[in-house]
């Protein structure tokens, strides 16, 4: 198995641990990743808010770069926001040929051509459908068996594209969690919005949504995420909300590959748990 890899800006910066643990996990599972050369930002939510064309040109540039590499037809994307932007572009150019033409006019500035051959895959999609779960099971050391973890999917890997999971009632992480010996926390917040995009511009709205999730996670040993925005949002606001609500909402939040990596015997340092903003001590004590 062999994928082109698009880390995205966050994984270079605020979510470096996601990048590191993803690469580590994939290697352990026998999957080769090759980073897209000279990739650039997908535009995040900003491009969409500013310019229709730009919001497709930015992802298109990366797809075109990937096509140019001619190595694999599939791009693995860990960041849900990047995934969605790339996916949207993948989808629209199949339907909207005039737009494709326009995009190519722009890409011509960099001597790039987009044909539309690439398939964009989310990390979770690949983990739950392509990677042999036996490998995770086999590698897991049952350190996790006393843990109850809450899978948190966020929005953009589930919606609007219904690719690998039920967008209303996601369960694709369940099998992966169970493979490590841990149990799945029973909640229905997995696909709810965490409000990340509002935390900076309209904090009270964003906080309300994070708060709901943190409160619902009460009883779980950790929350697992597959999106840097969600991760940041869930981690960085715990204190503030706890203070406001008068509750102790502290909970370790891990990226899914960090968790799987640990289960498979990687060390805390390997998966860079030190980079997590949330207090992970409770988790590490119980797990290891």
């Amino acid at each position, binding site marked *: 198995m062999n994928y082109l890899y698009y880390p995205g*800006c966050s994984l*270079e*910066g*605020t*979510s*470096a641990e996601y990048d590191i643990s993803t690469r580590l996990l994939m290697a352990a599972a026998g999957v080769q990743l090759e980073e897209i050369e*000279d*990739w*650039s*930002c997908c*535009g*995040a*939510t*900003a*491009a*969409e*808010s*500013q*310019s*229709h*064309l*730009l*919001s497709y*040109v*930015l992802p298109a*540039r990366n797809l075109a770069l990937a096509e140019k590499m001619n190595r694999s037809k599939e791009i693995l994307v860990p960041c849900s926001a990047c995934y969605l932007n790339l996916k949207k572009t993948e989808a629209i150019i199949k339907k909207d040929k005039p737009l494709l033409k*326009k995009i190519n*006019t*722009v*890409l011509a*500035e*960099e001597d790039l051509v987009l044909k539309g051959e690439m398939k964009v895959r989310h990390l979770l999609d690949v983990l739950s459908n392509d990677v042999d779960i036996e490998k995770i099971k086999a590698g897991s050391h049952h350190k996790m068996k006393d843990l109850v973890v809450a899978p948190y999917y966020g*929005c*953009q890997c*589930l*919606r*609007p594209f*219904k690719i690998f999971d039920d*967008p*209303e009632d996601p369960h694709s992480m369940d099998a992966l969690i169970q493979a490590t010996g841990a149990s799945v926390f029973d909640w229905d917040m997995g696909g*709810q*919005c965490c*409000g*990340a*995009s*509002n935390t*900076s*511009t*309209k*904090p*009270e*709205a*964003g906080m*309300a*949504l994070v708060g709901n999730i943190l409160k619902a996670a009460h009883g779980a040993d950790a929350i697992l995420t597959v999106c840097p925005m969600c991760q940041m949002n869930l981690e*960085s606001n715990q204190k503030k909300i706890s203070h406001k609500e008068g509750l102790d909402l502290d909970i370790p939040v891990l990226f899914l590959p960090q968790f799987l990596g640990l289960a498979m015997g990687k060390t805390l340092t390997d998966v860079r748990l*030190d*980079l997590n*903003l949330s207090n992970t001590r409770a988790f590490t004590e119980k797990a290891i």
Partner: protein
Amino acid sequence: MGQTTNDRLLAMTETAKEMVGTCIQCGTCTASCPNTEFMDITPRHMWRLLLTDHMDAIFSSKSFIMCSSCYYCTLRCPRGLELTAAMSLLKQAASKLELKQFRRSSLFYKSFLDSVKKHGRVKEMEFMTQYFMAMKNPVLPFAYAVLGLKLLSKGKVHPEFPFGSKGKLTALFNKVAELEG
């Protein structure tokens, strides 16, 4: 709001209006929206306003800015309307017109894209600084100070300006601007 602005808005929101043309105001979007309680106009009402050309009402509210792109409405709309995308179009219109009440979010996005334009990839610290400066609100940064310090201490943000040649994607941006007029 002047007549001209309204006309410009009408023109700019033409596509959004087409996108929600078959809306029957069933309210699924509103009930699905996690941010409804922070909106002064619910999505159900907003689509209605859009369809009946009440641009002034839409753009004097900030509802669409509150959209966090969770796509629940898009997923659930029985008419299959791409409501999240329509929200983006409204955001675009607001941004292009540089309407005052959307300054904060427009600037946020603008700063972000400026960073992308320059470096190809975004560097959080740079665009945040730019954003705070542009907001001309000296108090605002403190709200983020705690997070910023934390990130700095974890080595996740780099105060120095990043890699990549200046103006990396300028050509692309310019071409887009040219095409979109």
